[in-house]
């Protein structure tokens, strides 16, 4: 995980600025102030490494599927790395996350190693869930990751409930749950956001609007242009951000989470992004155009951040390639390590059914 040193200081200044500025002032805030947040070198390098790890991990999972070495199904997050590398590093270690089914990158960013997760996908005992859960249920409580429910939208109230309990215990922690554009049409979204609001729980509802729920465009299924608008139904604050800008994601999450710690309340944050690959492995992507995909690939969070890093003198092409190769080697090694590892047997699995 990136150190929070340099970035945090900048970010805190930014938060203070925003806190003192009224809503009107924020609107009038000079461009420079809005643009003020930049990672320092160390954090930039760490962030880049995280994004590359997320991307490479998914590529590797894809390869493993093709080779029949992973079974079941999986939902890959390629294209959404700015969220992975921007969210969890902006949170405290004791803050919780609940990514959705497309969440491997978030899980790695919160602390699980590629090995922990790859082992789960390969259903061996070393997997975060001992091979019982698989891709849709990467839960790692060591790193306060309560993972995803395979029932789209059902983790939204789970997160709200966790936030409620943290608040009851007087902890200054927040719960951040990620869900898609399509999930915002579930009744659970409505019920959970209403209760989160009336009980003022520190839940950060992060809608990763990647424009599609499986094959269905949000433009068709979501009756409103910006999902953030739905916060009004719950007297809840909200904001819309470019989900492909890792510095913006980081600083926004940090600002909101820190403010929630002091003054517990929920927040709806909408991050616009795009998933490059199909919904799951069997998707032919007939529902969208190659042009649209190409346009979004131009907004690649990694490529764009790389340009900035080069501009700022934080990285060279060569150093970037080296980092990429290192990440690749690391993930290859983690994957190799999974092979031949033993799996949980029936007797042991029976122990997980009922609490003892």
């Amino acid at each position, binding site marked *: 995980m990136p150190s929070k040193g340099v970035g945090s200081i900048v970010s805190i200044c930014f938060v203070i600025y925003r806190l003192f500025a009224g809503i009107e002032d924020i609107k009038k805030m000079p461009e420079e102030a809005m643009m003020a947040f930049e990672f320092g070198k160390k954090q930039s390098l760490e962030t880049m490494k995280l994004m590359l790890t997320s991307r490479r991990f998914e590529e590797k999972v894809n390869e493993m599927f093709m080779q029949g070495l992973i079974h079941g199904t999986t939902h890959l997050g390629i294209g959404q790395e700015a969220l992975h590398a921007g969210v969890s590093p902006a949170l405290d270690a004791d803050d919780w996350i609940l990514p959705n089914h497309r969440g491997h990158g978030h899980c790695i960013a919160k602390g699980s190693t590629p090995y922990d997760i790859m082992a789960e996908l390969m259903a061996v005992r070393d997997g975060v869930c001992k*091979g019982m859960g698989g891709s849709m249920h990467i839960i790692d409580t060591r790193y306060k990751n309560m993972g995803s*429910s395979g*029932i789209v939208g059902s983790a939204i109230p789970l*997160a709200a*409930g*966790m936030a409620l309990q943290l608040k009851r215990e007087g902890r200054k922690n927040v719960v951040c749950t990620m869900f898609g554009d399509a999930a915002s049409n579930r009744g659970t979204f409505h*019920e959970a956001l209403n209760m989160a609001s009336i009980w003022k729980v520190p839940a950060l509802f992060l809608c990763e609007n990647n424009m599609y729920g499986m094959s269905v465009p949000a433009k068709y299924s979501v009756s409103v242009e910006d999902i953030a608008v739905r916060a009004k139904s719950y007297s809840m604050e909200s904001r819309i951000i470019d989900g492909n800008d890792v510095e913006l994601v980081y600083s926004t999450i940090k600002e909101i989470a820190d403010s929630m710690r002091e003054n517990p309340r929920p927040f709806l944050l909408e991050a616009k992004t795009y998933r490059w690959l199909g919904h799951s492995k069997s998707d032919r992507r007939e529902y969208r155009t190659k042009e649209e995909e190409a346009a979004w690939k131009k907004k690649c969070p990694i490529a764009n951040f790389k340009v900035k890093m080069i501009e700022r003198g934080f990285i060279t092409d060569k150093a970037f390639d080296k980092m990429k190769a290192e990440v690749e080697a690391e993930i290859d090694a983690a994957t190799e390590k999974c092979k031949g590892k033993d799996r949980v047997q029936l007797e042991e699995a029976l122990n997980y059914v*009922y609490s003892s």
Partner: protein
Amino acid sequence: MAEKTFLDAIREAMSEEMRNDKNVVLVGEDIGVYGGCFGVSRGMLAEFGTEQMLETPISEEGFMDMAMGASMVGMRPIVEIMFGDFSTLVSDGLINHAAKYRFMTGGQVDVPLVFRAPFGSGTGAAAQHSQSLETMYTNTPGLKIVYPATPYDAKGLLKSAIQDDGPVLFFENKLLYRTRGEVPEGEYTVEIGKADIKREGNDVSIISYSRMLPVCLEAAAKLADEGINAEVVDLRSLKPLDTETIVESVKKTSRALVVHEAPVFGGFAGEVVSSIMESEAFYYLDSPVERLGGKEMPVPYNPDLEKQIVPVVDDIMESVRKMIKK
């Protein structure tokens, strides 16, 4: 020992556990000032305040899931829904989440949640407020289900349920709320998964639970006048089911009748029948095991019909008599 109502027994169990542990929280609609739809929590707000009494909007699915989320990080919620019929609204939380999170996470997470719901007909509340929906859950690994018939068992089982680290469904029956029975003052629990012989006998085992139990006991008392000595087995827990007690009873009596309020077809009696069929008790049977349950229709508002669709004392006596004649 003091005679208390079923309702008081539930309130006492909750109150004792809430006093012992601030993380035990009652969650539900109108549980505060109103005291709950049936008055179960009347008076509790004064003692426990809003910290332990979480009054919810009409958002059953949402508050069940929220309670579950809270339970994964330290709360021990008791979730009350007004009518068991609204089980349909919380089944995703119970079946797809509470029952599975410990398993799916390889044991990382426990879900110490109690779900309380009043079932049953007899109050003129018609088809959507009178069902007995236990079979929505009995086929779900990961859930425990208790369904007490007496105030004593209600209190003891509810305390066990609250102390259990996994999800427990605690089913109540509206017509039992005002019934009375002995409830000791001190702390005690009733073990989940143990049936109880509520009346001993040698001629036939009448196996039942919840609201049908007193009806069976009444039938047994009347059968005694006819010289028929019925044993009445109160299952108390449906899951895990105390097959041992059932089998021992049937081995002794050689006959069994299973009685519940839910419709016969697809009802829980099928499991009880099978458990006898699969045990050595089968070889002791003098006549086939029989089932009595609700008629194959939604619960009608018409009160004449509402009475006719659940088994009554006469039905039970008649079944037993026929069985014994065979």
